[in-house]
């Protein structure tokens, strides 16, 4: 599932460039942008900026110079072959989760190289500078801005898989976390009421009842902070998410941060970085006695 999540994240994040306003508003499970758009969005951006910068004419002349000097261009000469290659790469990566990230990365690197080249060509085309023959007629006023726009866009795209690969490895869906939190609270409440157990102790037992790897994943993703009120066996538990993609990618996703108490109130807010849930956050779930009993009986089966 990690790979799928990575792909989905990459797709939605990269789609931001071209989709900031295009998605339909509220709808009943409406259509939404898809991964493929992310994969190919960098290509039209690169083509458009290369056209605006006048880069294709330079590329053509540059390739001719390379061929005349006996060197082979890095990519196939025929533009048709390049386009065909890109399409084949896209189609190969669609059915399999992993390669889509690598293909996205590859396209990002190609776009970055193009952006740097355009800036370099622009600098070498300044009036008064000695320019190579393939830069005859090149316009620095078009080349440099186009290159400067393309570079950050490409860098952003390259950063997406880097930011999300580690993050997604142990990613837990919010629904899984919600369920674990609910079970944990039920268990905590039952034991603190019935067994006069210390919170740390009941968490340990909870871990044994649950599948251990699920609790480990929860602990890897969340800082679980217990605050026991002592004699009255009241308690609060902060579950604060600790794993986020690095800046600025953390602002495109968010994780739930929880605060739960002995009354069975589960409060939650979505956060972009490690932030404890405030005590006035809305109650998103309230566990009644019946529900606690149900959860416990399921766990003990």
């Amino acid at each position: 599932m990690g790979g799928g999540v990575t792909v989905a994240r990459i797709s939605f994040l990269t789609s931001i460039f071209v989709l900031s306003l295009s998605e339909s508003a509220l709808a009943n499970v409406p259509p939404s942008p898809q991964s493929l758009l992310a994969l190919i969005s960098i290509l039209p951006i690169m083509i458009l900026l290369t056209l605006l910068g006048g880069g294709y004419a330079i590329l053509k002349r540059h390739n001719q110079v390379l061929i005349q000097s006996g060197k082979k261009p890095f990519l196939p000469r025929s533009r048709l072959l390049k386009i065909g290659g890109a399409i084949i790469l896209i189609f190969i990566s669609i059915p399999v989760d992993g390669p889509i990230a690598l293909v996205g990365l590859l396209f990002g690197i190609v776009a970055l190289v193009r952006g740097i080249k355009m800036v370099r060509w622009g600098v070498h085309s300044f009036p008064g500078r000695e320019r190579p023959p393939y830069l005859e007629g090149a316009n620095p006023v078009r080349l440099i801005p186009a290159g400067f726009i393309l570079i950050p866009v490409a860098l952003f795209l390259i950063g997406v898989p880097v930011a999300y690969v580690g993050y997604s490895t142990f990613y837990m869906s919010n629904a899984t976390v919600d369920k674990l939190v609910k079970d944990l609270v039920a268990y905590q409440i039952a034991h603190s009421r019935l067994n006069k157990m210390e919170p740390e102790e009941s968490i340990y037992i909870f871990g044994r009842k649950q599948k251990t790897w699920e609790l480990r994943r929860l602990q890897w993703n969340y800082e679980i902070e217990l605050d026991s009120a002592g004699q009255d066996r009241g308690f609060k538990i902060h579950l604060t998410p600790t794993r986020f993609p690095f800046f600025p990618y953390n602002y495109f996703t968010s994780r739930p941060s929880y605060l739960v108490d002995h009354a069975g109130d589960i409060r939650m807010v979505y956060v972009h970085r490690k932030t404890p849930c405030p005590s006035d956050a809305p109650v998103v779930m309230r566990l009644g006695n019946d529900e606690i009993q149900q959860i416990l009986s399921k766990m003990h089966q």
Partner: protein
Amino acid sequence: MLLGPYICLLCFAFAFPFLSGLYPIVRFNEEQIDIHVHPDHVRVEGQYVYKNPLPFPVVQGFSIPLPVDQHHPRPVMVSAKVLSPKEKLLPVIYILEKYRFEMAFRANEEVCVKVHYRQQTRAHDAYYILTTTKPWRRPLIHGTYRLIQRGVQVRSSSYALQPHRSGALIFHKTNFMPEKDWHFTWEVV
């Protein structure tokens, strides 16, 4: 004259409305919405039937917008799974303030997806958003909407409900392009 880049841009412009979700690739034909109404929360189980009308495989992205306001906090335990043709869980991610998932369809394939969430309510009322079936650009062929009362009694509904022998309250619609959302209230018994 450079034709390649322009052809590429043209192809992208053609594909963009479909890839971006502006124009859906698959058709949304049917839905069955079951809402379990508890004293302080609702549990929504929606089954949605989509069909790929094309003779080749396609991928469609989906988002799950949820009715959130100051009286209705964010739903939790949001999950989605394919019920047919083959049951499997769908990875649902929360990104850009929405839950989203993606699904591949075979040629002419019909797929039934189940979406589940739970929402706490402060007042004894809840919403289910119906009006925005519009992005699908076609009316629903058939829709069934049920309220299952769990220790409550439904007091009002913006759509007329009929009692069902199962004890649920129900309404059906055919060729349905909703003009209003479904709002209902209840009291604890």
